[in-house]
């Protein structure tokens, strides 16, 4: 398979020449997935922290549901969002179909359960360790929540990375709700699917290599920040 060598050559060529089309889809991919991640963290961390320390009837069933939703198939999320945002759908008047906003909505739905379920586990474990302390000084609920979220922040960063990875790598949802429109809603994964369908396997793989490189860069950046923060926190 000479395609492999060709793919690497193409990948370096595209990055080296700062191909404007490539930059456009990379920037859109990052904007869409990061925005979805931020919204998902706001919802998912709150929900995860609440589920971790609250006790109420039906909590067990809710935990199973949230955990199961981690396995939401992107294409089903895409279909659901399409049906909601389509002109014939209930939210059609908002004219959001085939826009980056529609893609953000789909990815947010896709990764919020991941953030919620994983953060619930992390915070619940920490809460177990702190339980005696909280009981002895009778800390109010809100302060307990923030204390837990704050002390778990480094583990929660990894949770956020898992969510980001899922968002930036999925193709099924953004293909349906974004439409893979050139210069409007084309992102890395839909571009890869397009080049594959054109039979240009080398170019498709080259884009895949670049996407992997971006994921590596994001993870390395977060890891660097974390190391700095840990040093700072315990200095």
């Amino acid at each position, binding site marked *: 398979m000479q395609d492999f060598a060709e793919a690497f050559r193409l990948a370096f060529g595209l990055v080296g020449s700062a191909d404007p089309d490539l930059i456009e889809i990379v920037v859109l991919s990052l*904007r869409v997935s*990061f*925005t979805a991640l*931020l*919204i998902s*963290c*706001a919802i998912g*961390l709150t929900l995860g922290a609440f589920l971790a320390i609250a006790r109420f009837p039906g909590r067990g069933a809710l935990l199973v549901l949230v955990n199961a939703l981690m396995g939401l198939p992107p294409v089903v999320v895409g279909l659901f969002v399409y049906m909601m945002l*389509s*002109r*014939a*759908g209930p939210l*059609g008047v908002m*004219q*959001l*179909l*085939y*826009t*980056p*906003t529609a893609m*953000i909505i789909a990815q947010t739905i896709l990764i919020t359960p991941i953030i919620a379920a994983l953060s619930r586990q992390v915070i619940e474990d920490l809460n177990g360790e702190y339980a005696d302390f909280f009981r002895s000084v009778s800390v109010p609920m809100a*302060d307990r929540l*923030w*204390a837990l*979220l*704050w002390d778990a*922040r480094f583990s929660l960063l990894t949770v956020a990375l898992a969510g980001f990875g899922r968002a930036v790598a999925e193709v099924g949802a953004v293909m349906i709700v974004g*439409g*893979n*429109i*050139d210069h*409007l809603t084309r992102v890395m994964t839909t571009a890869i699917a*397009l080049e*594959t*369908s*054109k*039979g*240009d*396997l080398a170019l498709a793989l080259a884009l895949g290599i670049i996407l992997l490189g971006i994921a590596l860069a994001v993870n390395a950046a977060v890891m660097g920040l974390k190391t700095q923060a840990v040093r700072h926190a315990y200095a």
Partner: protein
Amino acid sequence: MKMKRIFPLALAAALAGGLTLALSLPAQADDTSIILQSTTSTANSGLYDHLLPKFSEKTGITVNVVAVGTGQAIKNAQNGDGDVLLVHAKPAEERFVADGFGVKRFDVMYNDFIIVGPASDPAGIAGKSDVATALKAIAESQAVFTSRGDDSGTHKKEKALWTAAGVDPSEASGTWYRETGSGMGATLNAAVGMDAYALTDRGTWIAFKNKGDFKIVVEGDEALFNQYGVILVNPEKHAHVKAEEGQAFIDWILSAEGQQAIAEYKLDGQQLFFPNAGKEGS
């Protein structure tokens, strides 16, 4: 303990940042753009990359192409998720207009379908120009055939060709007859991977880069004619349809200038689409 106060602030800042980012993205395409629901065969061939800049330069209207199978394109247009429909399945297009979803259907251009297959040619059909005989030979020799199986224009055409050949391949589905349920490119990739025959449009085939040792085995039969039609989505059904801009696109593509632009588009020195507007409206 002071650090704990910072976390809510950081979260609030992140949320605010996220919302700002979300809002700074264009909430919708600007007004001088239309959505064209079209097929993978036209988009993958590169035709739109050649045509649309000419149209945009002249009119200032941006055309956003959603390239899916004809079946899905028609369904999307019925839902009002597009302004113009450009596909290739005449009976389905006529039904779309008859049901009131489209204003009027115009012929735009044609290309032709071909059957491609591996160089080994297990059914021995290379060079045949009669499609019915070729399909019968494939069925009799039980040579592997990949079908789109996705209700696209190409799939509808393929089913019609099997019917005309007097063969019902659905009985062999999963054995020698394999329905990929995917787009043209994915189906060709599968065919190349399985040394299977496949029906494809000539445009996609010429532009396709993963041909392996595959060749065109059957071409030239009139039954393989592939007509494209263009339809404005009916603004009476969907009031938001950008009728003026959509009609401008249709007028342009049917005009002498648009038709010439179609004829000019060549890949590897071969003309892919043959304009034939005005020959027949319906």
